[in-house]
């Protein structure tokens, strides 16, 4: 299979037989790519999978956020998106009294949360009422380009399983490009190197094999 890289304005298909999906737009009878990425066709839809760009939040994504501001009834969380996210005190797993928000989460605290709702004006509500959601107390957080997240996870989590198997570290990948790692110092260093390699070579073939080799498999 040949992967074709397209650029903004590249013609990618005919609007009569195909439908525009993500990362493309229709003009006249033709479909054009709107961003730099890899061309993919799924059924009738033509999509462009981006190779770069900021995190585009979607409902249901698990993200790692940093508390930016504390209000009496809510927190403002930085989730690495163009917009700050709101975490209402009703959306946390603890019973929080009005005005006692800072007892639970302070500025700079790191949390795993899920995106609950996004409205038209791109106001984002997040919630901590999910299985994986928690306050992160230990380990380290690293940031990668959000467009490379699918590659870190791999097909059906294959890459993530590989990383876990060879380093014995605890890894949690947020859809927003933040990764939580916990483990022995040496292994963590190796893992970070591996993740940086995946990030750099995300668009190439045979990456899993090279990573296994690198991790000493």
């Amino acid at each position, binding site marked *: 299979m040949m992967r074709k*890289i397209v650029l903004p*304005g590249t013609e990618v298909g005919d609007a009569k037989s195909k439908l525009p999906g993500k990362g493309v737009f229709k003009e006249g009878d033709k479909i*054009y790519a709107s*961003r*730099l990425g890899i061309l993919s066709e799924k059924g009738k839809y033509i999509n462009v999978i*981006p190779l*770069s760009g900021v995190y585009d939040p979607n409902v249901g994504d698990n993200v790692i956020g940093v508390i930016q501001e504390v209000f009496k009834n809510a927190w403002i969380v930085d989730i690495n998106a163009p*917009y700050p996210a709101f975490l209402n005190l009703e959306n946390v797993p603890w019973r929080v009294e009005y005005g006692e928000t800072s007892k639970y989460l302070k500025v700079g605290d790191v949390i795993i949360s899920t995106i609950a709702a996004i409205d038209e004006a791109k106001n984002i509500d997040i919630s901590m009422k999910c299985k994986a959601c928690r306050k992160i107390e230990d380990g380290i957080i690293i940031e990668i380009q959000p467009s490379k997240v699918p590659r870190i996870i791999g097909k059906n989590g294959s890459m993530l399983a590989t990383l876990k198997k060879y380093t014995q570290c605890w890894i949690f990948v947020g859809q927003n490009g933040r990764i939580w790692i916990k483990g022995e110092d040496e292994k963590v260093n190796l893992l970070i190197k591996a993740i940086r390699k995946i990030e750099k070579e995300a668009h190439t073939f045979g990456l899993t094999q*090279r990573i296994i080799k690198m991790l000493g498999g």
Partner: protein
Amino acid sequence: MLIKDGIRMDGRKPDELRPIKIEAGVLYRADGSCYLEWGGNKIMAAVYGPREALPRHIQDPTKAIVNARYNMASFSVEERKRPGPDRRSTEISKVTSEALESVIFTELFPRTTIDVCIEVLDAEAGTRCAGITAAAVALADAGIPMRDLPVACAAGKIDGTVVLDLSSEEDKEGEADLPVAIAPRNEEILLLQMDGHLTYKEFEEALDLAIKGCKEVAKLQRKALLNKYKTFEVE
């Protein structure tokens, strides 16, 4: 004497461009970046965003703000330039912002800004065209959705001949300079300025020549972007 027997001072033909070198993704901290050399011009462009527009009163609830900043380094010209924005760079920033804004899908990112920094490290005529060309590559590298990859090129008139891509001497001594930015797919004009005098016929000739030049530069832009993702050696 700027042109003799159809050969210009630097040995170019009237419809020939100066040598161009484009490299995408050169800065680590920026979301997208580009380094461009066009004749004696050396330009670095960086794109940040879309990111939250602050202070909040500048936010537009319907679309993103495109904020280009053209800046000339004090050492970019022969006589030291006083650093900081001046009348000229403020104008270029404005026209560049507007040229880029017309190709970007700004409505996809309400309440944000897309910041484009264009730093001229070395200047030799035609910096605004080179700046837009570099900014376009940086925008594509940053993954910003666009209708097309904008591109710019200048034409002008020296010694009564319409020529493409003026050099420093030609710009100073020539009769006219016509920078043009287009969206190459449908030849939509994004920027058109003129300095000097041209007859109507000469203007049309110069515009056609500039568009032809733009399309040539557009090929180099695309090549530079594809290069970033293609040239990777497997050890």
